[in-house]
């Protein structure tokens, strides 16, 4: 772990750009390629990269397990919440036209929140799967001692 200074420095340089690129893919998804799913995977990949270089405990300090589990459910709830909100505003389920002052801004708002829900769930699920895979042997080892 002492000889990997190149990896550590490169990771430190790359991870902020990866996260910003994830946000770009998310918010530019209306105009270019991308969207919630891709952005979620990129964000999760950035955190997994961090965990690979700096170790799992460090990553778990940055993004704790409880937060990941909360976000996992929160994304789905956000997506469904958009649907419920459109019912409450007098439309059908996931009918974005009623969400804004005029139909186009309503569509914009609906797509934005739906994609945010997809981003949150996908990123959290990928991260959680990685966490439980990577932590399993470690936890089992602690249990054995």
């Amino acid at each position: 772990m002492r000889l990997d200074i190149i990896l550590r420095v490169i990771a430190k340089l790359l991870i902020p750009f990866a996260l910003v690129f994830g946000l770009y893919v998310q918010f530019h998804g209306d105009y270019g390629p991308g969207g919630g799913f891709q952005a979620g995977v990129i964000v999760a990949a950035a955190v997994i990269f961090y965990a690979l270089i700096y170790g799992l405990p460090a990553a778990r300090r940055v993004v704790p397990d409880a937060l990941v589990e909360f976000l996992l459910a929160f994304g789905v709830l956000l997506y469904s919440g958009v649907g419920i909100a459109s019912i409450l505003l007098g439309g059908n389920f996931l009918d974005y036209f009623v969400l804004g002052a005029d139909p186009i801004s309503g569509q914009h708002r609906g797509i934005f929140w739906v994609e945010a829900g997809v981003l949150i769930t996908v990123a959290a699920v990928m991260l959680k799967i990685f966490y439980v895979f990577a932590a399993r042997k470690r936890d089992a080892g602690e249990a054995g001692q």
Partner: protein
Amino acid sequence: MGAAAIGVARQRNLYGVVLLSGIYSFLMATVMVVLDAVDVAMTEAAVGAGISTVLLFGAIHLTGGTESKPIHRPWLPLFVVTVTGAMLVYGTLGLPAFSDPKAPIHQHVAPRYLKEGPEKTGVPNVVTVVLASYRGFDTLGETFVVFTAGIGVIALLRRRSPRRTREKDDEGGRA
């Protein structure tokens, strides 16, 4: 790509298999770019080549690095796969030619999506429009699928401290 696929099938060392399938995913992503499906290419590169490679390495770390010798000869499965593949290829002969504008798939709702989608929603990327707006229910379902996958993995693999002690007791009782 064919070489990578054959390598995956022939290789006995699972580390090699994981690396080759990562290469396969990257090649697949470039094919998607050539076909102008940049969204799919992005997903393929990030999930197929990135995260699933890491996850498979994690799984190998848990289980060990070499494939066990198969018990049966592979002739019957090979026969079934060949017949199924031949039937599928035969089926594609009846499809309209690739990128034929008169194909039914381009006549149904696609023209309406392409024409009206950007106007009605003000979002120029038609993929996003179809995914999030026209097919909002489907995407909600997909999000639930991802969510369920995460819940399933948590339920299978997570160890909580009370269960941990109980398992230890079981092992002690057996020993």
